[in-house]
C-alpha cells in the first residue's frame, strides 16, 4: 500500500462504520422496481446534466452528473510530448488520468492513484483514442484529466461521455463523439445505467448470468471503441447487453449535441445572419 508522506494520514488501522451495518439477508429483489423508480429490462438511463467549458484555465472541460454520479474532466494540450518514442513523430499521444476523490466512494480512498484508477485510465484511453484524429497532432500530446467527485455507479460510462465532450470543447479534431453506457445483468433481468448499489448487488448466489458491461460507442460512425465486462455472462447475454448499451448511448446523443451546440455558439462569435 503506497502512502503519501506529505499528507496527514489517518490511523494505521481504521474501518468505515458502514461495514458494521447489518446486510439485508436477501439483498434487493431482482423482480421488484428499482430503488430510484426506474424500470428493469428497459433502456431506462438516469437523466443527465451536462455542461461544457467550466474550467477557464483548461483548453476544454466538461462536467457530467447522472443521479449522484458526478464527474469533471479537463483537457490540456496539444503540447510537446515529454516522453518520446518513434511513433510520436507521426501521430500524437493521448494521455488519460482518471482519479477518484478520496471521498467519492462509500469507503475513503487514497490520494495516491491505485491500480483500479490506473485500470480505469487505461480503459478510458482505449475508448477515446479511436475517436481522436491523432495524426493531426504530431510530436504532441493531449492530456485528459478526469476527476470522479462522487461515485454512484456507471462511472466509466459517464467518464467516457464527459471526456469526449471536453475534447470537443477543446477543439481537438475527432472522428466522432464518444458516448458511454453501462449495464448490470442480474440473472435473467438487467438494469441499464446501474447505481453503485445495483452494481454491487450480487443477487442470489446460484445465478450464472451476473455481470457488468460498459460500452463506448461512436454514434455517427456506428463503431464500438470500448468494451469491457466482468462477472459471468453467456455469450448471448453479452451480445444482447452490447445492443442494449448502444441503444442507451443513442438516448444520450441528442442531449450531448445540444450541450455542445450551446457551448460552441457561446464561445464562437456567431456568424451574422445572411
Amino acid at each position, binding site marked *: 500500500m503506497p502512502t503519501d508522506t506529505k499528507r496527514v494520514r489517518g490511523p494505521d488501522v481504521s474501518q468505515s462504520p458502514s461495514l458494521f451495518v447489518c446486510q439485508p439477508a436477501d439483498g434487493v429483489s431482482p423482480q421488484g422496481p428499482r430503488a430510484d423508480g426506474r424500470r428493469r429490462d428497459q433502456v431506462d438511463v438516469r437523466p443527465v446534466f451536462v455542461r461544457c467549458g467550466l474550467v477557464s484555465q483548461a483548453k476544454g472541460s466538461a462536467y457530467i452528473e447522472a443521479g449522484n454520479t458526478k464527474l469533471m474532466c479537463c483537457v490540456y494540450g496539444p503540447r510537446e510530448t515529454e516522453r518520446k518514442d518513434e511513433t510520436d*513523430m507521426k501521430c500524437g499521444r493521448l494521455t488519460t488520468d482518471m482519479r477518484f476523490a478520496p471521498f467519492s466512494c462509500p469507503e475513503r480512498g487514497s490520494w495516491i492513484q491505485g491500480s483500479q484508477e490506473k485500470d480505469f485510465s487505461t480503459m478510458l484511453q482505449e475508448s477515446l483514442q479511436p475517436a481522436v484524429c491523432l495524426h493531426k497532432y504530431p510530436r504532441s500530446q493531449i492530456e485528459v484529466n478526469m476527476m470522479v467527485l462522487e461515485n454512484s455507479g456507471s462511472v466509466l460510462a459517464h467518464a467516457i461521455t464527459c471526456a469526449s465532450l471536453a475534447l470537443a470543447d477543446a*477543439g481537438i479534431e475527432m*472522428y466522432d463523439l464518444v458516448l458511454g453506457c453501462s449495464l448490470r445483468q442480474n440473472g435473467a433481468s438487467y438494469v441499464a445505467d446501474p447505481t453503485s448499489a445495483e452494481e454491487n448487488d450480487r443477487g442470489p448466489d446460484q445465478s450464472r448470468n451476473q455481470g457488468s458491461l460498459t460500452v463506448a460507442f461512436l454514434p455517427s460512425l456506428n463503431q464500438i471503441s470500448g468494451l469491457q465486462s466482468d462477472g459471468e455472462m453467456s455469450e448471448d447475454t453479452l451480445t444482447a447487453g452490447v445492443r442494449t448499451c448502444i441503444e442507451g448511448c443513442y438516448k444520450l446523443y441528442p442531449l450531448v449535441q445540444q450541450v455542445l451546440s450551446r457551448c460552441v455558439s457561446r464561445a464562437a462569435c456567431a*456568424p*451574422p445572419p445572411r
Partner: protein
Amino acid sequence: MQQARRAGDHTNMVFHFLLHGHIMHTTSWFLFFPGEKLCSAEDCVLGTGVYLRHGYIHSSLAGYVVRKSEGKELPMISVVRGTELQLLPDVGAIVTCKVTSINPRFAKVHILKVGSTSLKDHFKGTIRKEDVRATEKDKVEIYKSFRPGDIVLAKVMSLGNVESSYLLTTAENELGVVVAHSESGAVMVPISWSEMQCPLTYAKELRKVARVQAKHLEA
C-alpha cells in the same frame, strides 16, 4: 474588449471579400458536431476541421461550416470554431520564437507563435549552425547570429526526430532576428543584415538580422 476586436476582424473580412468580388464565401448558421456527414467528396474540396471517410466529408470539430469557392473550381468546405484555431508548428510554417540558449553548434528556442496565432503551450525548437543563413554556411558562428532573449522569425524545416526538437531555419533574407536587446537593455535598431546598434550607447552587435516584410508586421 475581446468582443470588439473580433467584431473588427469580421468587418475586415467582409471588406476583403467586397474588394475581391469573385470570391464567394458562405457560412451556414448550422452547427456541426464531430462525425456528422457534411457532403459528398465530389461536391467539395477538403478544408480544415473535416475528414474524408468512404467518399463523404465529415466534420471533425464542433463548429460552423464555411464554404469558400473561387471561380469554377469546387468549393472548399471547412468547419471552424469561433475561438482561436488549434495550430501546431508544421513544416514550412513561419514561426516566431525566443532564443533560450546558445552554444557553438546550435541555438535553442521556444516557439511562441505560428503565423499570427499564439501557441498556448510552448514548443521547443533548434536552429543549427548550418541553417542560420543560406550562403557561407561554414563561416557561421552562432554567437554572432543570435543571443539568448532575441525574438527570431524562422521557418520550420522538419519536425525533427526522437532526440531532437523541431528543426528551424533562418536561411532567408526575411528570416532572422527581429527584436534584440543590447547589453544596456535597450531595443536595438538594425543597421545592416548582420548588425544591430544600441540607441543609447551606439555600440554595434552582430546578429543575423531579418528584413521584416510588411505582411509580417502586425499593427
